[in-house]
């Protein structure tokens, strides 16, 4: 994008699990309206980076800025209220609760600002969910659950989405749908998206820029065009 300040900036992030270091000195940025993919091998540290940026894990060192404001150490409630939403890679709906209750919970941190009207708006956007509003989320299909998880994140009208492996467990046609939705959210609604993915094909298809992570370090940053131009990606992993 232009020279405007990035909406999301991670600088020198170090994360450890107990004594074991998992992420070393990770830095990345997301500009407004961008879709940025963070790709890499199983266990490269992508999810750890994402969770630490959001506040689900505490980093050992480093800074994270959202719209210029430092957010490390803030709890997830504060981050949600600021407009950042996180969608986990699995177990991303409340299975025992009904679809509409899930949506209400998606907006919980916003308090009164998110009410019935917001839930209805999500249903308008995802009619499939509306048909199943009273159904228990555990009984939905994989794709419908993923859709619900997106709805739960969007209900608070966020500025930024952190998606952890959105394609996981989905059939190819559904993966395309999810990626297209992500692209649309960014381009038509101005959301900024940081997406961790193992499905590089699909991620690169809709992303603007790509970071590649290996063994806890981000060692490559390219535009999506540059990535797409490569013959293959095997040497990256």
């Amino acid at each position: 994008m232009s020279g405007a300040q990035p909406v999301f900036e991670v600088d020198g992030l170090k994360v450890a699990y107990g004594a074991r270091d998992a992420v070393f000195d990770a830095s990345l940025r997301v500009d407004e309206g961008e879709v940025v993919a963070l790709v890499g091998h199983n266990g490269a540290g992508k999810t750890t980076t994402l969770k630490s940026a959001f506040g689900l894990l505490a980093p050992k060192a480093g800074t994270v800025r959202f719209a210029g404001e430092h957010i490390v150490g803030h709890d997830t409630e504060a981050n949600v209220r600021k407009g950042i939403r996180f969608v986990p890679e699995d177990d991303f709906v409340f299975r025992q609760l009904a679809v509409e209750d899930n949506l209400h919970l998606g907006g919980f941190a916003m308090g009164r600002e998110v009410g019935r009207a917001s839930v209805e708006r999500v249903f308008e956007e995802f009619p499939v969910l509306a048909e199943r509003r009273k159904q228990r989320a555990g009984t939905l299909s994989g794709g419908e659950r993923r859709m619900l998880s997106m709805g739960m994140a969007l209900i608070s009208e966020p500025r930024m989405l952190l998606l952890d492996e959105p394609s996981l467990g989905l059939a190819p046609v559904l993966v395309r749908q999810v990626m297209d939705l992500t692209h649309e959210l960014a381009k038509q609604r101005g959301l900024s998206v940081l997406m961790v993915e193992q499905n590089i094909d699909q991620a690169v298809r809709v992303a603007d820029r790509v970071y590649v992570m290996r063994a806890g370090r981000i060692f490559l940053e390219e535009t999506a065009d540059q990535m797409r131009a490569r013959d293959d990606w095997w040497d990256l992993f």
Partner: protein
Amino acid sequence: MSLNALPQLLLNGFFAGSFYAMMALSWGLIFSTAKIFHFAHALVFTVAAYGAWMVASQGMPIVGTFIVAAAVGALAGLAIDRGIYRPLRRRNALQLNVFLASLGVLLAGEAVIQFVFGVQARSIQGFTLSPLRLGRAGFTTLEILVVVVSWVVIGAVVLFMRTRQGTAIRAVESNPELSRAMGINDEKVYRNVFLVGSAMAGVGAVLFSLQETASPTMGIEPLIAAFIGAFVGGIGSIGGAILGGLLLGMMENLGGIFLPGHLQVIVAFLLLFIVLLVRPVGLFARDTKA
């Protein structure tokens, strides 16, 4: 078999069942939300009873005694969570270790109480009994008090679960990690369930001490009734805990139709084992996949 005793046994079963329903709910809420086998709930119960005894013997009216017991219980339960469980949570301790820690707190706490207050049983003053009759069955206003207080407390908790905080509890109960991702403060939820569950135990402690007495080891049997009721009825289900407690109370007393008195303690465990074999999610749980 003694069917003449049936009306009395049915009534006794309802009295006991009402108390067990409240206790099962108090313990089950903590277990299903924080995933802790809170053995030390028995200690909270005992501490609240002694707090109640202390104010009651100074002449506090019974309403005040209940309030003090609920408050003392709530604080004791919260202290145990903050002091023992939360540090273990933060370290991702094994469930077995948490259970052992809880058991350890209970045993140590009972020893302290015995040391401070002595071994003898204490009765709580403040409520005078009047006898009542229903056909062939006899009881007193104390049994009525137990029933009324138990169901009022249960009702209050059911209403509380409909509030915003109750919704947050349901979320954390269902999926703590996702709840945090949604911006729900899970530590606040744990605090709330310990406060509510422990306050209920405090109220139960007064009811128990009025019917019997307060003593250092008083907590273990109500605790066992509570967790059997909760498991039999179905963990994670408020209605389940309530119905499980009621069923336990009824069965313990109706067992009296064919079992000699000294075997009635077996009834509770028999019920639990049968439920675990036949329908382990609990008799009244709504979904079989839990």
